[in-house]
């Protein structure tokens, strides 16, 4: 057992209102620079939709992630031979138009235009070339199903649906959408790290954050192709690739990452998970139907004395173990089994988990009257607006049983709380729903509490970074004691 700690995340999609505050918080801090304008380390997509970059989930186009190769996995688009073949021109890489060409407006023209018969306008100018341009796409052009035939109908996850199922999704009173905020998954088996010819990418030992060393990056851009989530971006100005750093400077000082901190719907949870690094190789090569279970097996019980002992032997700090015990992520993912990884079939073992959204039940409009199609307020999850096949394609590598189970658990919690707060439901029906998913009412209450009433400190359990210990590994702090501290930018005239 090789116990390590990993900063993991849960996004509760039921609570996401698609406001993009997270994206703006991230953009303002990290990617508001020349060459980074088109990057959205955090972006919010509408599902069904094609996402950003367009059709990123389609690995036939982008060749990202790992593919099963006997007992092990190999990179789909990179690696020794494939990498060498494409080292000077990588044809699977997204081009700028697959993201979008960033632009701004010439606002000054509104004020400086000479007097005329017409209103002055602020024309769009490209942030790449500086020339006037016709805006063709943005990072969330499919927002709220905008341009639906172009975006929603081209969602890669619809491929697994039959033609009639697909058609049904776009009928009035059936049509639905939800949001999918995405950041770097800081995977346990990161394809970007595996693909880098320069060894510039690495996974931090203490918290598992995946970073690109800007000094070692040689702009091969293999990581851009290899990341199946397309969360590594090439900065054309600096000639280096960049990606989400999970705001590690904030984490190290005990603050939640900016996108987590700013989240209006409070959908985001962050906490430590202890995992067994010895199991990564087998879990990433598990058969498709076992992928989610195999990944869940990697995460260890932080209360198990044996796990604690092994963690200590590996140098995991006690404060980190305590944080793992209080981790909201551990509760959502392992204890309550409510959260699933996004596209586990990419085999990168992502550490960002999603609680799927319970969508409104189906209804019909007859003679101008809105009729629910079922007698009860919430119909069974089987008649969910989004077909289970679609959700399974997103969250469980096509295993509909897995998502159905999660939806049933969510439904049980909702029914239970409706019973508590409104009391208009049949008590037998509620207890049957809880019994179906083997959930105690106390657990349902706890889930409700962490979902709806959680405080800041319950949502973000950030362990101390112990920088003071890690610096002692590199240098003797006694050497510099008394030599640094308060200083001067300009020495005083009288001298020191």
């Amino acid at each position, binding site marked *: 057992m090789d116990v390590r700690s990993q900063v993991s995340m849960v996004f509760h999609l039921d609570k996401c209102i698609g406001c993009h505050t997270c994206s703006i918080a991230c953009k303002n801090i990290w990617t508001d620079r020349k060459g980074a304008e088109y990057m959205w380390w955090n972006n919010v997509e509408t599902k069904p939709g094609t996402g950003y970059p367009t059709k990123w989930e389609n690995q036939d*186009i982008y060749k990202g992630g790992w593919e099963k190769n006997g007992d092990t996995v190999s990179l789909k688009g990179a690696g020794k031979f494939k990498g060498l073949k494409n080292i000077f021109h990588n044809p699977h890489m997204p081009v700028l138009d697959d993201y979008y060409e960033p632009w701004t407006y010439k606002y000054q023209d509104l004020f400086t235009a000479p007097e005329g018969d017409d209103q002055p306008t602020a024309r769009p100018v490209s942030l790449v070339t500086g020339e006037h341009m016709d805006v*063709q796409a943005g990072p969330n052009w499919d927002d709220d199903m905008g341009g639906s035939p172009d*975006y929603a109908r081209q969602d890669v996850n619809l491929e697994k649906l039959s033609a009639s199922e697909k058609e049904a999704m776009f009928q009035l009173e059936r049509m639905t959408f939800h949001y999918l905020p995405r950041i770097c998954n800081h995977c346990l088996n990161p394809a970007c790290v595996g693909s880098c010819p320069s060894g510039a990418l690495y996974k931090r030992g203490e918290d598992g954050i995946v970073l690109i060393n800007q000094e070692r990056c040689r702009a091969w851009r293999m990581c851009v192709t290899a990341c199946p989530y397309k969360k590594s971006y090439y900065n054309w100005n600096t000639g280096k690739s960049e990606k989400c750093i999970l705001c590690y400077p904030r984490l190290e000082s005990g603050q939640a990452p900016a996108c987590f901190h700013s989240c209006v719907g409070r959908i985001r949870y962050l906490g430590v998970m202890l995992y067994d690094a010895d199991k990564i190789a087998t879990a990433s090569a598990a058969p498709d139907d076992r992928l989610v279970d195999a990944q869940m097996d990697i995460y260890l019980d932080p209360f198990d004395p044996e796990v604690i002992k092994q963690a200590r032997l590996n140098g995991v700090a006690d404060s980190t173990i305590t944080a793992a015990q209080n981790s909201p992520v551990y509760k959502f993912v392992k204890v309550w089994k409510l959260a699933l990884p996004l596209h586990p079939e990419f085999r990168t073992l992502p550490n960002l988990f999603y609680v799927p959204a319970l969508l409104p039940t189906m209804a019909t409009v007859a003679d101008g009257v809105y009729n629910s199609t079922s007698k009860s307020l919430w119909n069974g999850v089987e008649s969910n607006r989004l077909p289970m096949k679609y959700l399974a394609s997103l969250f469980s590598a096509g295993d509909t049983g897995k998502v159905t189970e999660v939806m049933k658990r969510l439904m049980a919690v909702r029914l239970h709380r409706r019973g508590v707060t409104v009391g208009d439901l049949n008590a037998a029906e509620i207890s049957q729903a809880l019994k179906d998913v083997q959930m105690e009412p106390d657990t349902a209450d706890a889930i409700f509490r962490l979902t709806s009433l959680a405080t800041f400190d319950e949502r973000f359990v950030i362990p101390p970074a112990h920088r003071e210990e890690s610096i002692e590994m590199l240098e003797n702090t006694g050497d510099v004691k008394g030599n640094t501290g308060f200083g001067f930018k300009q020495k005083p005239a009288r001298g020191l």
Partner: protein
Amino acid sequence: MKSKNNHLLSLTRKRILSLEVLFCSIFILLFAKVDFAQDGEAIFKQNCSACHKMGMRLVGPDLTGVTTKRTEEWLMKWTRSSQALIKSGDADAKAIYDEFGGIMMPDQTISDEEIKAVYAFIASKSEAATAATPAVTEAVVNASADATPEVIELGKNLFVGSNAFSNGGAACIACHNVNYTGVIPGGLLAKDLTTAHSRLGGDAGILGILGAPPFPAMTQAYKGKAITETEIAALTAFLNKVDKDTANQVASSPNLLLYGGAGGLVGLLVIIYLLWFVRKKDTVKKDIYNRQLKSI
């Protein structure tokens, strides 16, 4: 008074000095002129004899009576730059060039006076020759054909540089190439010497060139590092062997590089096209843009 005397004295001295300078100059000029006239033969030996011989056709034509056959002006032009004369459209010059197998005569860097001296020498020799019995064309003697394998081997070693020239000259392979078993491809700076032996009219041509290199670059390269007679004999024997050994002479098309390169490029493009046939050719948004533009 004294000062005036001094002044006169200095004037006289100055006059004497200028006279001295004048006489000296005349003397030097006269002496030099004489020197040139006498040197015609030496210059001929140094610069011309590699290819030309009086009363016998060698690499270049027999020069007996050439001074009466051509005008002095024509001879001067030809000697300074035969190629320039050919290019100017002179029919005679072209005819001579073609007659001697297209072997160009190198441009001579000697001065006009020296050229004149050489032709003066040729004229004097010609008169003597016509006075005597007409020259009998000697049969071309190629003694090198009988050379022992050891001598040929020595020649080969000298050519490729495994044996150094005793006076320190550069190995032939630095500038020349021959197609011969066991000899790596040589330099491309100067002529390919595979068929040099027959091209230059047998032993005599090679011996002449190696004894007194007439080509400017070669003259410079072997200045003060003359190739000894034994070495010359060995090299001549080697070049004769290379010339005869036709098995090693690959008929090379001058455009091989061009056609081969073009063919190779096309082949390479085909391979690249096939290897990368499955690739992302357009932006994934192309269809979206096209449909949206159509609907406007």
